């Protein structure tokens, strides 16, 4: 194995792949390595894998730059080892289209229309007084989180696993805002638009809709607060939709229009994009039915140790990380290996159905290297992280078990 070690004695990625012995491997979640000051390697199979790290975006700490304009900023995985709430300055940033860089609070309006009794144009104060103020702790995760780790690779934003984060969102219930206009009988969906608009004439606007039963949930919000602060502009100031348990594509930012529909939504980003195969496919399949991506599946990550890290042989080893149930409560997290190593993890405090939960596990005695270990989350409704990637051509909803290798020394 010596030939697979680099000058610092760390196991190289090539050696890991070569040493995998036929096990179907996906790129390890914490393959992230700081290459040099300001450059991180995301461990994307086949590359290009290096990305700039910069603190130069307004209101943001050090973030991985996926795109400058409109901004796509990824959270370094090390942030998730610091707690179950992601600070505002480290939360990932994702815009489909260009957004305004300035918003005047007094001039902002939210139009509520479509299949309603009386269309209204609401000020921010109207929204804030629309009902009871609610706070929900919820994970905000991009549908394409982990896309760059797909194998075979797919086009799109080449995220590692950092297009996610958990915050305390505060606002009013969407249903209380809808009540200001009065929803008509026969309403099927509620559609949202924000201030971000296409750069080209005739291109589809980024609008998204959710079914009526989701819209009327007690925890679906029109939110203005993020971790006790006003929403930062990069996160959708002044208002964004929050749909706990659903991917953030529905969490429309800079909310300016709420439209009640009486039919299915045939708009581009619902009917044509953000869709996944209705049944599992292979990369060779071309024609298959699709469904809109909606609720999140369970995921878990080791955050205490990076891939290739060296641990003490003959000693106990405690691993730590975060897990999520997605749209259902987390039931358990297990440490899994490639040859039967399997230990139940201890779950930390329950911070809510839709929040990250810390887990820890102690291996009593590290006798040898720990190749391809991972953690597997399961929900109370029976959803379990799969061993094999549910590959799809858009790289959506990744939730394969993420694995790392630790060396005993």
């Amino acid at each position: 194995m010596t030939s697979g070690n680099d000058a610092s004695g760390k196991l190289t990625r090539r050696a890991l792949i070569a040493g995998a012995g036929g096990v179907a491997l996906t790129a390890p979640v914490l393959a992230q390595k700081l290459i040099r000051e300001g450059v991180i390697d995301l461990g994307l199979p086949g590359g290009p894998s290096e990305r700039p790290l910069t603190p130069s975006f307004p209101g943001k700490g050090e973030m991985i730059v996926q795109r400058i304009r409109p901004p796509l900023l990824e959270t370094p995985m090390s942030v998730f080892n610091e707690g179950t709430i992601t600070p505002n300055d480290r939360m990932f940033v994702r815009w489909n289209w260009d957004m305004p860089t300035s918003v005047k609070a007094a001039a902002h309006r939210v139009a509520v229309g479509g299949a309603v009794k009386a269309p209204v144009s609401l000020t921010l104060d109207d929204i804030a007084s629309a009902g009871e103020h609610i706070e929900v702790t919820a994970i905000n995760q991009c549908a394409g989180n982990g896309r760059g780790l797909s194998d075979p690779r797919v086009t799109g934003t080449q995220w590692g696993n950092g297009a996610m984060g958990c915050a305390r969102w505060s606002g009013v219930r969407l249903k209380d805002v809808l009540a200001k206009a009065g929803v008509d009988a026969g309403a099927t969906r509620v559609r949202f638009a924000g201030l971000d608009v296409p750069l080209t004439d005739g291109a589809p606007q980024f609008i998204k809709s959710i079914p009526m039963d989701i819209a009327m949930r007690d925890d679906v919000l029109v939110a203005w607060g993020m971790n006790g602060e006003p929403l930062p502009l990069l996160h959708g100031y002044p208002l964004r939709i929050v749909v706990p348990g659903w991917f953030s594509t529905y969490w429309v930012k800079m909310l300016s229009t709420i439209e009640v529909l009486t039919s299915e939504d045939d708009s581009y980003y619902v009917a044509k994009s953000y869709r996944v195969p209705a049944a599992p496919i292979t990369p060779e399949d071309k024609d298959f039915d699709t469904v809109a991506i909606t609720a999140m599946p369970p995921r878990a990550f080791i955050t205490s140790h990076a891939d290739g890290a060296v641990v003490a042989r003959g000693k106990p080893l405690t691993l730590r990380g975060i897990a999520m149930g997605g749209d259902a409560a987390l039931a358990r997290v297990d440490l899994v290996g490639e040859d039967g190593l399997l230990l139940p993890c201890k779950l930390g405090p329950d911070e809510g159905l839709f929040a990250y939960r810390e887990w820890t596990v102690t291996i009593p005695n590290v006798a040898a290297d720990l190749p391809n270990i991972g953690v597997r989350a399961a929900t109370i409704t029976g959803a379990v992280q799969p061993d094999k990637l549910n590959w799809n051509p858009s790289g959506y909803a990744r939730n394969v078990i993420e694995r790392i290798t630790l060396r005993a020394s």
Partner: protein
Amino acid sequence: MRALLLLIALGLLAGCDRAPEVTFADSSITLPDDPMDLPDLPGRDAVIANCTACHSPSTMLQQPKVNREKWESQVKKMVEIYKAPIDPQAVPAIVDYMVAVQAQQADTEAP
């Protein structure tokens, strides 16, 4: 936590005549520059003229290596779905450039 929320809620209900407790201030940011760091290969001018209005050069250089047909279909998607005002004459040069850039990247990243 639930109890605390309830207390806040009751407080709100009790005082529904008063102004909302949330205040909104104007918000404004300045984004960093987006440098035009595209390798000097044939087709660069066509890419700058037709693609960079929407695509950061940095993003264009971060895509996984795909074949010429995939790049052709990507350009087609930009024209047909996203209504990109791309000069049809420039399409072959754009595709050539992306293929050449990725070949160059593969050379520099090869082990």
